[in-house]
């Protein structure tokens, strides 16, 4: 069956989406930046998440947790991007062409010290758990909700990530 786009005016759900998403933009941009380690890529990711959210705005019922719902969409977009990185290398042109002296704060974060650099090096799933829990200040349960995982999986991934970082400390690869 062919999908025929509707040309109706924005529904109540879509109007609500625009209002709530507008209030969340700064927070979403920061989350994507921390997850992806790049300001320009974060902008693209948030744009994609807004697009997906807009398409499925009707699925969000009144009274639902909008923040968690949109976070989940954004986390999925970022997860796809992180996994794609293992296949294709992208170069953020801005990082190399910017002569105005402006520094991408997300790239700078990854290079700031050994600990943040170690987080940037973690496999995508472990990196997301660490960022959501420690840097985005979410509880384990809220982190699990964003990632659509059981809390036990979040705990195990978090432990594995901490273990990986700790292992680097023991081996002297990281100095704080």
């Amino acid at each position, binding site marked *: 069956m062919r999908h025929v*786009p*509707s*040309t*109706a*005016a*924005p*529904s109540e759900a*879509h109007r609500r989406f*625009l209002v709530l*998403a*507008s209030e969340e*933009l*700064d927070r979403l*941009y*920061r989350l994507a*930046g*921390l997850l992806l*380690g790049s300001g*320009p*890529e974060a*902008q*693209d990711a*948030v*744009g994609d998440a*807004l*697009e997906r959210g807009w*398409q499925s705005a009707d699925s969000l019922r009144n009274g639902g947790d909008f923040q968690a719902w949109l976070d989940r969409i954004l986390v999925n977009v970022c997860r796809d991007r992180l996994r794609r*990185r*293992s296949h*294709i*290398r*992208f*170069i*953020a*042109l*801005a990082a*190399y*062409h910017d*002569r*105005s002296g402006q520094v991408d*704060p*997300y790239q700078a*974060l990854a290079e700031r*010290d050994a*600990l*943040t650099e170690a*987080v*940037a*090096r973690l496999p995508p799933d472990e990196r997301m758990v*660490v960022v959501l829990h*420690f*840097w985005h200040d979410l509880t384990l349960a809220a982190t699990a909700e964003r990632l659509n995982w059981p809390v036990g999986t979040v705990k195990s991934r978090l432990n594995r990530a*901490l273990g990986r*970082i*700790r292992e680097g*400390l023991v*081996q*002297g*690869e990281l100095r*704080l």
Partner: protein
Amino acid sequence: MSDDLERWLRDGVRPTEFPPAPPGLRARLVELEQRPIGTRRRGPWKHSLILVPVTAVAILAVATLIGGGQKPSVSGPTSGSSAHDVGSPSPTIPSSPLPTGGIGESRAIELASVNSIGWTLIAASAGRYGDLKPPGSGPGDDIPPDRFVWAVKFASEATICNPLGVCMSPRPGTVTVYLDYFTGTFLSSAGFSAAGPTPSAPSPPVTFSFDVENRSHVPVIVSVASDTGAVLPGFEPGQRGTISIPLLNPRNGVSIEVEGGECRLLASGNFPTPEPFTLLVEDGPESGTVTISTIADASSTPIPLPSNSLVGCGG
């Protein structure tokens, strides 16, 4: 140690140190609002990640291209939108009321963005051309001052060239694209940038080459990025070869990252004013680690890059 580690992680990032969402994201919401439900976005909106290699964009040259060839046809939603800066919470009041039947702001942005990949949207305004025209435009400007237009302003780097092709080095600037208010037809574009000191002759990219010798026991990927491209050949232990990469401006140099298996960064360095050298990759103090150093010496003829199955990855 676990408590310390978790505390270090929690304290390592301050939310306030990161900037707010860029205006382009708020413009995206405006675009969604004006789009019929169920349709998806088309057009060159993707922001900044481009698979290498690439070449730099000369804003004014592209602006000329828009003027020469871009005559977009228009069939979009209409609205009596007020003029306002994208991203600002409240619109500014135009000096004269806007007539009904014009294209919407998002449509104007979309049309103006056709040849502006990688530019950052600053503002979109509607009004009479006389109120929005570029300062200093003279007799050659044949758009009637009372014509209603959309003025869509972008920021990017500008390379200013005179008619003889003599260019200044790229610098921050803006380009404003003027469209007919009712149809979205391209009318004009104007670029601005801070004046530069001395024009310099345009120069083609130069090729910078250096040798790599992997003296370690670790298979490595040597990822090299310049201002116009990147390469990432692999070197098994004992292998050597010459890496060549184009440079738009030799003073920008190259950055080098040495990666091991599973995308692990082993070493990195920046070479801002590269002279021919040999990059030595040697075993580090720990098993599986390497150190890099250079010696001011390179082969007189390029050494073919080695054959192996190593594949680089990024992030």
